[in-house]
């Protein structure tokens, strides 16, 4: 009985048709036009974004290659005449040791304790000669150089005068899995030095801060740790 109602309506209405107004197609077309334009603009936007990203990356690469080398040249010029004559006779042992250290990068974590111990007496030796400013300056420079990419490593090593330089830099050069381990020891060393600087003299505070800032750039994750440890000291 109900199906008869259904059938009546279905037969009459399923194929039924009503004349749409003249504007109906225009409306549809307007929508389609919008969509097409949207797609076009999206494509243009995508291309623009891609191009700008590529140029940005290219510029970054270029600057990465150029800047550090320029800096290096400057630093080398400054340092080589000043420090080499003074330092070399005094610290043959230290420079040798640093070389040795750079060779045994794998086993460094074990040496960390020994080395940090060594660091103390050295600076103490230096103090009486009123050369305090020079080594610490170099120390402060160290982390800055760690920001620099690999190519600097080799040139730096050649003229290394500072004790901490090779060992701080090495962790940067070593492959990923090792980094986690070695970085810490490097950090510890730097912390030791930072401690010395802190304890030794007040005018070095600025340098210390600058160093910490630069350091924070490089080891963001460890920043907090650093702070805590610093406070602890």
């Amino acid at each position, binding site marked *: *009985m*109900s199906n*008869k*109602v*259904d*059938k*009546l*309506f*279905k*037969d*009459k*209405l*399923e*194929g*039924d*048709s*009503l*004349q*749409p*107004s003249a504007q*109906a*197609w225009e*409306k*549809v*077309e307007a*929508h*389609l036009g919008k*969509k*097409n334009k949207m797609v076009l603009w999206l494509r243009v936007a995508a291309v623009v974004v891609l191009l700008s990203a590529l140029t940005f990356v290219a510029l970054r690469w270029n600057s990465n290659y150029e800047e550090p080398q320029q800096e290096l040249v400057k630093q080398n010029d400054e340092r080589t005449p000043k420090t080499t004559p003074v330092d070399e006779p005094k610290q043959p042992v230290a420079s040798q040791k640093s070389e040795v250290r750079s060779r045994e990068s794998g086993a460094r974590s074990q040496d960390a304790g020994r080395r940090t111990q060594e660091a103390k007496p050295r600076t103490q030796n230096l103090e009486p000669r009123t050369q305090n400013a020079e080594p610490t300056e170099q120390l402060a420079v160290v982390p800055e150089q760690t920001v620099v990419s690999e190519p600097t490593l080799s040139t730096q090593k050649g003229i290394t005068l500072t004790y901490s330089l090779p060992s701080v830099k090495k962790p940067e050069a070593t492959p990923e899995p090792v980094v986690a381990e070695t970085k810490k020891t490097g950090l510890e060393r730097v912390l030791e030095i930072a401690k010395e600087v802190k304890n030794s003299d007040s005018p070095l505070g600025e340098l210390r801060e600058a160093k910490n800032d630069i350091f924070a750039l490089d080891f963001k994750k460890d920043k907090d740790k650093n702070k805590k440890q610093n406070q602890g000291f």
Partner: protein
Amino acid sequence: MECQIYHAVDNELIDGCKKRDRHAQRFLFEHYSGRMLALCCRYVKDRMDGEDVMVVAFTKVFDRIGQFKGEGSFEGWIRRIMVNESLTYLRKNKSMYLETDIEAAEREPDYDKLGGELEAEDLRKLIADLPTGYRIVFNLYAIDGYSHQEIATQLGVSENTSKSQLSRARALLQKKLFESENGRINKSVGRHEQQSGQII
């Protein structure tokens, strides 16, 4: 034979529309818009609103035509998009269900005779007068061939709700049909019998 010709035309049209050929799109629109407008107006009472719904649905047809894989009839595919768009419109703009209880007619009208007498226009009006919920379910089930399960999914109700809505819609339509039949008889014969569609 005719069917096959239509099918071939459809395929060409579909290919054209997939390439976003404006002429093909226009032709497809002209070909189907009349029936689709009638469909939308069965759900959406107002003619202008129905046309707006159809326009939006057609833009979706053209957007998604790449998704039509040739399974089932193309018209069926378009119809579904139209139905979905109509339901979306109703969902947005009106409460879907009215809780009025409908009384069933006692006597059956003569459907064969009614079929001859009533025009599609009259039936459309009868459907348009149904409460929204009944109208939707009756349209979906009786005319557009949805199952109760599909309706339940579409509307987010239980199958039983769908069934009860359908039977109430039928009862209401039946009553109205009977009234219109009686009205005609009464006009010609006179008021020899009081309208006897009694209430259960």
